[in-house]
């Protein structure tokens, strides 16, 4: 990519997104002819099975995967930018542990309510973020590093509570909750999109509008303040926005790790670290990455589906090892 100018890289990225979308749409246990795929979109499809496969199964899953990947990567990029810490990740603020606890509570105590599960995961995630904020504010911590420490503490606390609940209740509940802990798109439908997409778009819109302010905050708090940026309110706003976005994704897709940590690093290498390119690029790359991961999850093992978290974690570990060896070299 180094040999391409910046506009060309953007074009390549958009083409890659489009190509990945089409390719992943036709990847799975059943493969369609390209012409048949085309017919599904033009309405000339004569086979109702094919139509259903594309419109009811693959397309919602693909869209959810793209939106979830975009959202996680955007959250990670925003948090890394705000904290000036390249290792910040939506995980670290306890959001996923909180969502896991919420989902556990819901699936143990209200198993009949289908809507309760995502809602409970969402509430659990918000609870975790609230706890982190309260801890950080009580201790009068100023820097986001301290928020991260509080987030780690809350993460462990919530994970412990989840483990305790699962240990005390029926062993089958653990299977149900595994979903939240490892991440999966198998529950995909169009409905979660109505929930996640507005969060994602709002986050992206505000991140783009406040691009200069965010860049100033990347530089230093003092410089940002002297440039007239309301540092603390903005930081709180984006903290809450990323929490809501991550929570809404975790509520439907579970805890898909490493996307939020890894993708922004990749984007910085490709497009630079200025807020605008980082945030838009992270959305695109995160989306592309997750639909490929999901395509892998569906096809790598012939008879079963792998949890997404398994693949993203493996990719993440490989990526950081490569990064490490490149730094050394």
């Amino acid at each position: 990519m180094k040999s391409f100018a910046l506009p060309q890289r953007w074009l390549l990225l958009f083409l890659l997104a489009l190509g990945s979308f089409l390719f992943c749409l036709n990847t799975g246990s059943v493969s369609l002819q390209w012409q048949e795929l085309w017919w599904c979109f033009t309405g000339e499809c004569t086979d109702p099975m094919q139509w259903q496969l594309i419109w009811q199964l693959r397309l919602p899953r693909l869209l959810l995967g793209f939106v979830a990947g975009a959202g996680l990567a955007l959250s990670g990029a925003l948090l890394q930018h705000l904290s000036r810490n390249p290792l910040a990740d939506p995980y670290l603020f306890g959001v996923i542990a909180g969502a896991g606890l919420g989902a556990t509570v819901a699936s143990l105590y209200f198993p009949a309510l289908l809507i309760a599960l995502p809602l409970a995961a969402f509430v659990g995630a918000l609870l975790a973020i609230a706890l982190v904020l309260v801890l950080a504010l009580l201790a009068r911590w100023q820097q986001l590093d301290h928020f991260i420490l509080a987030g780690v503490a809350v993460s462990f606390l919530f994970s412990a509570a989840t483990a305790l609940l699962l240990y005390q209740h029926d062993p089958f509940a653990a299977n149900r909750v595994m979903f939240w802990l490892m991440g999966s798109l198998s529950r995909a439908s169009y409905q979660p999109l109505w929930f996640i997409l507005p969060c994602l778009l709002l986050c992206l819109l505000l991140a783009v509008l406040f691009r200069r302010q965010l860049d100033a905050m990347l530089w230093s708090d003092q410089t940002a303040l002297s440039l007239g940026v309301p540092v603390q309110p903005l930081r709180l706003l984006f903290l809450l926005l990323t929490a809501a976005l991550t929570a809404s994704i975790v509520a439907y897709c579970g805890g898909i790790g490493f996307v939020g940590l890894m993708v922004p690093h990749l984007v910085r290498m490709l497009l630079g670290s200025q807020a605008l390119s980082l945030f838009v690029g992270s959305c695109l790359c995160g989306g592309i990455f997750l639909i490929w991961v999901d395509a892998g999850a569906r096809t790598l093992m012939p008879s079963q589906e792998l949890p997404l978290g398994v693949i993203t974690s493996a990719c993440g570990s490989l990526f950081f090892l490569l990064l490490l060896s490149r730094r050394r070299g």
Partner: protein
Amino acid sequence: MPTETVLGCQLLSFCWQGDWTLAPLSFELRAGERLGVIGPNGAGKSTLLKLLAGLCQPSSGSVLLQGKPLTQYSRTEKARQLALLSQENEQAQAMTVAELMLLGLLPHKKLWQANSQADLNLLKQCLVQVGLSHKQHQLLSSLSGGELQRAQLGRVLMQGATLILLDEPTNHLDIQYQHQLLQLIASLPLSLIASFHDLNLAASYCDRLLLLHQGKVMALGTPQQVLTAPLISTVFGRPCLVDENPFDGKPRLTFAPGDCV
């Protein structure tokens, strides 16, 4: 209008946990004037600069920027008049020079406004002023300490502020870059308040000096008035000799090394 007052403070003070970090002090800065703030570590130099920049609230007194209390300015209004170049060696080094300098436009732009051609022309002009035209697309991490400071100064120029506060601008710079930076600042139509550790640099590049010690003003005046051997020896706790810098006629200080006391 060389006598116009840019910044004034009246009985400004800052109290932290019952102690004077900065005892009440008053002074005025005229347009185009360069004021150096000197004193030992912990004398209150950084506190004074933070108060003047409005980054923390004074315990008493007020700061007047162009005759109007600082508290009555909106954030962006203030940023258009007053810029701060702070001391931390910051980590946002993955930005390019141009990206950093364009940050200076922040207080002049609405959220949805893109950078116009006029802005890019201004960028070009400011790049020339700080001598970084050839490096505008380079990452900050690839610059030398002096170039980094100049890039930051470029950001301040883009900001369009006429008053700059600098917290130890020559830290981490070698002698050549120290003089280059201060000479550059002196050549620009700016009013300046800067803190210094190097008293000789302060003497050469400032019109007036403010000497702080334990939060109190020990002296305020021209370098000749402030940099006297008895005063400096007392404040810095080190015998010192004052003579004349043969190049510019400003006071020159020489401190006695350890075993010569």
